């Protein structure tokens, strides 16, 4: 503590928090940034949110009175036949896209951290491109948007096949669960685009590590939720 007292003498002002990208070095108890603690608490809370949503989906699974169903065929009174509605190949592709976006995201953060560090003259394209935060931010946002495109496609094709949010318990729980996830992805894409915009206007550097890191944590969390949804909703029947 003595060292602290020397570093931050008993002056005022050193401990008000900040919820923006302001550049004071405020005293904090743990030496960590407030925003990073808050985002982790937030992600903890999100665990409960998605646990509730996913449990509901599983609880209602197989309880729908009428089809279409996720994994089994169904014939309605009019004799119309419905295939099992989940489209595994398409969703596998979108899952891969989202996983790839997480990869792009870590590289974006790395690029921001490394900005300004000298790079060896012998570095190949892979080393060089690793230094482009704009590229990776754009790639992440693009992959995220692609995932959303897949989801939009999936939703519309379900509606065409006769499954809406009102049709049965499966429809309600499925659309709400994946819709919630999709909404999270949408927020993430907007967030990434904002970062990209900042990067293009004033450039992101190591001092901005934190704001990119927070976005990255959120993004990976959204990815991780999808990993669970993909297995529990799509693959397990």
């Amino acid at each position, binding site marked *: 503590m003595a060292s602290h007292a020397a570093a931050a003498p008993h002056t*005022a002002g050193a401990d008000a*928090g900040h919820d923006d990208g302001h550049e004071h070095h405020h005293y904090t108890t*743990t030496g960590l940034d407030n925003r990073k603690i808050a985002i982790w608490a937030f992600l903890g809370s999100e665990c409960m949110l998605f646990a509730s949503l996913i449990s509901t989906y599983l609880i*209602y699974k197989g309880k729908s009175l009428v089809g279409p169903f996720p994994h089994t065929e169904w014939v309605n009174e009019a004799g119309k036949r419905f295939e099992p509605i989940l489209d595994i190949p398409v969703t596998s592709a979108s899952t891969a896209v989202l996983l790839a976006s997480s990869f792009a995201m870590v590289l974006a953060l790395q690029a921001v951290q490394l900005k300004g560090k000298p790079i060896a003259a012998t570095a190949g394209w892979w080393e060089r491109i690793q230094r482009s935060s704009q590229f990776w931010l754009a790639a992440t946002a693009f992959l995220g948007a692609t995932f959303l495109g897949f989801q939009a496609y999936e939703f519309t094709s379900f509606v065409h096949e006769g499954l809406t949010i*009102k049709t049965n318990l499966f429809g309600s729980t499925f659309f709400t669960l994946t819709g919630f996830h999709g909404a999270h992805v949408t927020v993430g894409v907007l967030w990434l685009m904002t970062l990209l915009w900042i990067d293009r206007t004033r450039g992101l550097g190591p001092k901005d590590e934190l704001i990119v890191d927070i976005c990255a944590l959120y993004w990976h969390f959204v990815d991780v939720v999808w990993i669970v949804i993909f297995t529990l909703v799509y693959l397990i029947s």
Partner: protein
Amino acid sequence: MATIAAPTHAGHAEASSQNTGIWSWIATTDHKRIGTLYLWTALFFFLVGGLEAVLIRTQLMKPNMGFVSAETYNQLFTMHGTTMVFLAIMPLSAAFFNFLIPLQIGARDVAFPRLNAFSYWVYLLGGIFLTVPILFDVAPNGGWFGYAPLTTVQFSPGHNIDFWVIGLQVLGVSSLAAAFNFITTIINMRAPGMTLMRMPMFTWMSFVVQFLLVLAFPPITVALVFLLMDRFFGTTFYAIAAGADPLLWQHLFWVFGHPEVYILILPAFGLVSEVLPTFSKKPLFGYNVMVYSGIMIGFLGFGVWAHHMFAVGMGAVADSIFSMMTMLIAIPTGVKIFNWIATMWAGEVRFEVPMKFAIALIGMFTIGGISGVMHSSPPADLQQTDTYFIVAHFHYVLFGGSIMGIFAGIYHYYPKMTGRFMDTGLGNLHFWGNLIGMNLTFFPMHFSGLYGMPRRIYQYDSGQGWDLFNLMSTYGTYLIALSTLVFVWNFVRSRTRGAVAGNDPWGAGTLEWSIPSPPPEYNFAQLPEVTSRYPLWDLKDPSKTAGIAHSHADAMTITDAHAVPVHEETERFTAKELGIPMPLPTAKPLFTAVGLMTMFSGLLFLRNDLFAVAMTITIGGACMFIGGLYAWLTSPLE
């Protein structure tokens, strides 16, 4: 708070323009002002909820009374429960979180001052949204836990439940935002030397509560989203024709609902843990165990929710497990009760008004706790559930616990908040009225319940054996109401007329008492360095704290006054004079909150087939919300 500053602080006028006028309140980002706003708003809602209780009790005074209609009665008890829980006690606790936590841990403000303002405005708007409908007889009427399928459009076609589901959803946003804020504040904004095991007990209990909030609100958010989607977009989560299972709502609600009751009680426990040592002139007995038991209560609180559902037929195994988990909670709670008594043991117990309320909490909460344990035995609970015996239980813990604790806190911290004491005579009147009134009101309910009176009934026949108990309850309520009016008078009047209080009017030991009352906007002119759990006692009466750990070598020699790093601050300067950067005032959080509320209220029109109107309002609100958020995040804090 300059308007109410006591004259002794005239030394340095707080001359900055932000300090007066309505705008200074609208744009405030100061945790103390936000705390004050919370306090006033929540007290107002407490009166509203109380008034609803008075009407309820008047209707139940006699058999087949006919004072209000069935429909009105159903709205009254729904709104009474909802108001008391979400608009009175939780925000009253939030008032203390806001006002006290930064002061107790030696911080300038909370971690995110503008988010804090946002939480308050969302709460205010949500509260108004939820309360106004009762003036038009369209208030929510599904009970405070709104069991499906009664709350679906099929059985509640009016707008009543719409207000409830939207209102609670919005209030949830407020609570969650505040909780992230306080978690961060407590972890990261503690003054040097304020280790976790030196935090004042109120801060500790609040810390636990923030985690309960963060983890318990998501399930109810999900449950409410389902209901909202059912009501506005025709999904089938609770639609009986689609084969929905009503227990889904019940489980999701109570996964939230039981931690919620500890959200309601732990801050009160924290407050009395500040009051009891102060007025016994002794440190809290068994501090560590008090911390652990608080954490334990919070933790166990997540594993007992289904004790509200013993009558739904979960099966013998589930009943047994939830029963035993519930009983376990009595152990850490009992530890608290006994440690409080031990805190007073061998002390010098001064019966100031806050102390009276704190002692009453111990006595009254225990009664509620014991009846709680009686419910925790499922076969016995089957005779109790949904009767007035339950109503007796939860009013003993809520009124005898939360409310008593909060009043202890209000009388205790009023001098810190305003610089003046509340009147003791009136305070005593309030106390005795409350104590006698609550026992007269709620004790007979044990009997009416066990003698067969169901809850939530707007009328009953005579000759059922309940008449006398109900009459007593009603008179008790009138007594509480009268004494509450005394409190209101005292509270309002003392702001300008109360006796002037100094920094440390009660001889307390924690940091908040080392600075002037009311505290200057920057709280601490110097960052305090904390040496023990009771830094101020270290300073003023080291013998009191000699027995507890002081981890600093240099502070071990407590008797050497120069080694004590906490300074009692007596003079007030402006932040500018001291060169302390303060968060700028801004109305952007308010603007953003209005956007959020508008966005949700647009939904109401969906059910009147006014699609275009609904979309306009919702999208307009969403734009306002996003725009406000954006403007807020891109403008500098200080």
